[in-house]
């Protein structure tokens, strides 16, 4: 393993990592099937980036974008490591597909951020009940089955409703991006 970088790099690392954390996390999430897996890998990526930061600085400390690209390489490696560890008991995309997706995801970080900004607007256009339903599906440790039980609804019907809401959001985002609102 690489030597940890000197302590005076810490502030610089934290600033760069904070700046790009969300984008890197988005790249990781696009390759993995769950929020929990993404959390686990993101943790490893943070540690790995810190341990390798001195080596990164030697070559590329002049460009801030270089950090994002470099962190994506680290992230891809950690995702592949994670996949090999869990591939026997979990359904995860293959190495080759992960590689293709990660490369595409790095290149679409601009679009991804625009989509997220448009989503905030689009979500606000839904009524409160629908907003709560959509967000509750993604609550850590919760599931569509749990929510269906609590609401006394059929799981499949609830899932259809959630997907219909996702369709509405998707179309809203698309229209806002085409209109150049973001």
């Amino acid at each position: 393993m690489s030597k940890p970088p000197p302590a005076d790099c810490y502030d610089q690392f934290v600033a760069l990592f904070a700046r790009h954390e969300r984008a890197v996390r988005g790249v990781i999430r696009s390759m993995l099937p769950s929020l929990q897996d993404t959390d686990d890998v993101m943790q490893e990526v943070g540690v790995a980036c810190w341990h390798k930061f001195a080596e990164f600085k030697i070559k590329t400390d002049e460009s801030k974008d270089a950090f994002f690209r470099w962190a994506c390489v680290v992230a891809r490696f950690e995702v592949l490591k994670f996949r090999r560890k869990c591939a026997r008991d979990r359904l995860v995309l293959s190495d080759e597909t992960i590689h293709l997706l990660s490369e595409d995801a790095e290149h679409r970080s601009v679009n991804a951020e625009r989509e997220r900004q448009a989503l905030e607007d689009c979500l606000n256009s839904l009524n409160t009940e629908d907003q709560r339903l959509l967000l509750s599906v993604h609550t850590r440790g919760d599931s569509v089955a749990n929510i269906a039980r609590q609401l006394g609804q059929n799981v499949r019907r609830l899932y259809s409703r959630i997907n219909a809401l996702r369709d509405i959001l998707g179309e809203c985002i698309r229209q806002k991006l085409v209109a150049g609102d973001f």
Partner: protein
Amino acid sequence: MRDELKALTRAYGDGTINQIELQRLEDLLREDAEARQDFLSEMNLIDALEEMSLAAQPEPEDQDQLVPKTIQKTLRQFALTPWVSLAVMAASFLFITYVFWQNPGSPKIGTIVELHGSVRWTGQEGVVVDQIQAGDSLPGGTLEILAADAWVSFRFHDGSIVTLSGRAEAVLSDRDQKLLLLRHGSFSANVEPQPTNSPMVVQTPSAEIQVLGTQFNVTAGTTETELKVNEGRVNFLRLIDGKVLEVPAEHLAIASLDAAENFTAQRPGAHPTIWRIRLSSDADVKHGYWKPALFELASKLKQSVATGELTEAEALNEYKKSANMNNEGSVWAEPSKTGCLVWLDVRDEQRRRILLTDQTRIRVAGRLFGSTELEMGFSAYAVNGGFAGKYSQSVAVQDFKRSAEGKFECVINVGDLLPQSDEKPIDLLIHDWWCVTDSNTAKLEITRIEILDK
């Protein structure tokens, strides 16, 4: 976005996908760049909703910490400021290059000089052309090899030539400097002298190569890039840690995504003339599904325990006994454009390629169901040079013996393989080997491949 892709993407993002759906999703994503964009957009929506959901929840006290609490607070401030991600929006070098060649006004950058088999070019605004041919002048774009026996040579205006082979996909551009983005596969290049301040740049998933003029070969996979320099010198940068290596002529170096791996230039020893594939991992599998040897045994033992034929302890003992004896696996063919395909790298433990002589034979063993004809072939490279051609032979299944379980073994004289040029593949290096069935519904398992001399 197609309904099927949307449903599969959501099932994946929600963690509810099953094996068959995952396989279908893989197929869609591998084949179609637009499908990948749609998939990423949908996954981005899921990620954003998860983030909003988390932001609405009280934060747990004992959350794992990457950095101390004070720094975490700073991190959160950055992360929650809407416009900080504008920094991310500044396009990377690759992205800028991508946009350049998407520009409808892009000039031609070179010509296809030789081509064999199924090759696709994707150019301006996603226009896909499957019928390119020798003599076609092209602007920047993506060249993709679609079949095992295919390859293509592209000459830039200054005479530099790159030859792609081995299920390769590469983006080519030439504005202020030549850029080749090799997503996967192999290419060999003869690069004419380039201006010192604008060398040709080759980017792969794990490395970056800067070339001022030389002959070299590159093979890129998802986790490592192999560079063999035959003439001149090449600067080789490993992306994971930014280390740079100067690789001289007749030397080989590997840049892995694992920084703990050795990163030095080494002169390969004399090339061996005999070889046997190692199937203890999927390291040499370019196309196909590697299965550990004990996979089937484990399934059988589980079944025996379920039916009461064995106790759990007996099954475990049986498994342990076999595990100590044999760690080798096998490779199953996976569908491709031309049939079910197994495609393997041919190299020994020191990564040396195997030298073909006039006595070389290839022995193949495996299992086969549902196919009447196999095509086997390989890519050859000059000993100290670039791509030398692909050689293949069709074998009627009825011509070799098969057991009731579909097991077969066949031996092929290399001299009998059909060359795509007039020359026999003697004194060349075998780089990769493939076997493809005549149907995408066939089942083909390769358990052993050997190269024999005499």
